[in-house]
């Protein structure tokens, strides 16, 4: 016969009390832990999560004489029907494309060159990073008013003249305006990328170069078959961050050209700014924000996909 040992009443009470104690302790610990979190969570809720939802909801609404009504896709139709919409995307893509040409390849080349030197490395590193520390407005106005002045008094035009090249209108004419902004932006921002590449280059084991050289690989082959693959992860990460950052360009246009000449430097963010703060049409501006979010989101997903495939290969 099986003996069933049932706990006595006193023991049950102790167990219950223990369980309750554990529960209370756990609850107190959780409350305390959430107390540490509450400040940040509130700030995230107010300034990131809520605006995010608000942007999506309001992009389908219209504010009419103080009354909010559901507007369906009207805001989206309005923004895509605006000829400036397509121009803004073209301008933005032009800026991104040129900024990648200069701002992506150039810092890598600069980092590779600096890394070869056994002297003056610290000096060169400080130099390329100096412009990053300027307040952006100071850097932009410095170039706009003194170096890229469209008249003959501009320093760069004087330089072109001395080299017997035709002077440029810089930001003063539509064809050269965006490239001028790219030059300013690259000058101000490339320091960060150079430093990151330098750190990545210093992690490449010297034996790889040694082995490649013994196999008869020349200078360019060593760059292509050792340097690039060894820094591939950081290269592609910075590429993606840079694309996302340059697609949001606003300050350079706003400070240097005000979107002109002939709207050649109105970017997507600038157009949203105009809709919101010039035409007081916040709903349409938010619809443009949602479109931009989708475009950049699709791009990020594509990047992650490609990156994963690249890592598996």
């Amino acid at each position: 016969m099986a003996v069933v040992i049932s706990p006595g009443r006193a023991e049950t009470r102790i167990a219950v009390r223990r369980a309750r104690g554990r529960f209370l302790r756990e609850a107190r610990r959780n409350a305390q832990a959430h107390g540490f979190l509450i400040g940040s969570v509130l700030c995230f809720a107010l300034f990131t999560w809520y605006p995010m939802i608000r942007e999506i909801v309001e992009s389908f609404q219209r504010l009419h004489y103080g009354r909010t009504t559901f507007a369906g896709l009207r805001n989206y139709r309005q923004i895509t029907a605006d000829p400036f919409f397509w121009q803004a995307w073209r301008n933005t893509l032009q800026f991104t494309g040129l900024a990648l040409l200069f701002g992506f390849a150039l810092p890598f080349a600069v980092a590779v060159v600096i890394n070869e030197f056994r002297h003056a490395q610290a000096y060169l590193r400080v130099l390329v990073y100096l412009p990053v520390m300027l307040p952006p407005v100071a850097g932009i106005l410095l170039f706009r008013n003194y170096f890229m002045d469209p008249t003959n008094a501009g320093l760069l035009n004087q330089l072109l003249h001395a080299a017997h090249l035709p002077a440029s209108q810089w930001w003063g004419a539509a064809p050269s305006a965006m490239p001028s902004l790219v030059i300013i932006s690259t000058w101000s921002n490339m320091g960060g990328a150079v430093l990151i590449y330098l750190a990545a280059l210093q992690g490449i084991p010297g034996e790889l170069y040694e082995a490649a050289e013994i196999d008869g690989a020349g200078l360019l082959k060593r760059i292509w078959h050792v340097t690039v693959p060894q820094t591939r992860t950081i290269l592609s990460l910075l590429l993606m961050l840079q694309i996302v950052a340059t697609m949001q360009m606003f300050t350079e246009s706003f400070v240097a050209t005000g979107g002109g000449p002939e709207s050649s430097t109105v970017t997507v963010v600038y157009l949203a700014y105009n809709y919101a703060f010039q035409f007081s049409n916040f709903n349409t501006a938010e619809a443009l924000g949602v479109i931009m979010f989708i475009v950049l989101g699709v791009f990020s997903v594509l990047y992650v996909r490609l990156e994963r495939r690249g890592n598996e290969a």
Partner: protein
Amino acid sequence: MAADGTRSRTLISRAQLARGSGRRLYWVCLCAVVLLFTLVFLFPLYWMVSGGFKATSELVRNPPSFVPAHPELAPYRTAWSELHMGRLLLNTLIYAGGALALQLTFCVAAAYSLSKLRPVLGNVILGMMLATMMIPAAILIIPQYLTVLDLPLVHWNLVNSPWVIWLPSVANAFNIFLLKRFFDSIPEDILAAAAIDGAGPLRTLRSIVLPMSRPILGVVSIFTVIAVWKDFLWPLLTLTDPGRMTLNVGVNSAAANMQENVLIAGLAMASLPTIAFFLLFQRNIMSGLTSGAMKG
């Protein structure tokens, strides 16, 4: 060159550079690059600072004058008073300092809680925070602006008050991520020992975790101050009262009506604080930047 023997080789082997023609080529390249970089990155800054000592006619002269012929302090004095530079600098300092204090308090507390206290739903909250890193900042600016005009529930209008910079800066997922990753690397044993000695979570944070985290706190502080100092679009929208503008916005709004030599003096003064800060802390800033970015 013997001193460099400990460094591992790079693209070009050292032996090649030590020999006759390689060595000559190395020095020619080095001098050319140093000269070119000085011209490209340092000369504009020199032009800015020296331009503030020139008269306008000399500043825009063709051919250019590289050394001020009759150096005068007047443009700097005029720029200081016309731009209200003292107030702009003080404002920006207050915004950056407050943002730093709030971020160090709340981001550290949050990262500590998520890393070591691990409350219920902690991972969900962390995920929602990190997800905001995917949202490009410029996209959220308009609904954020509408939100600070009339804060939900309490109906405060934060525009033109320092809180409009301070509070949103706390919602910084990247800093929380950096801090949490650092706290994760602190061994549990140390914290358990503190708990046995009767230290509560706040005490443990203050006397054990924080002293061990000085490097990462430095990195986060530098990122925070530089971000506030360089921000343009957000303060342009939210700090519109001339007495409350930041350096960037104030200089930009006054620039159109200023004489060329006064403006360039103003730009030089606006740039000086961060340049000085950088030269003082360059080692920390550059190593912080690369370590933060590499691991992130």
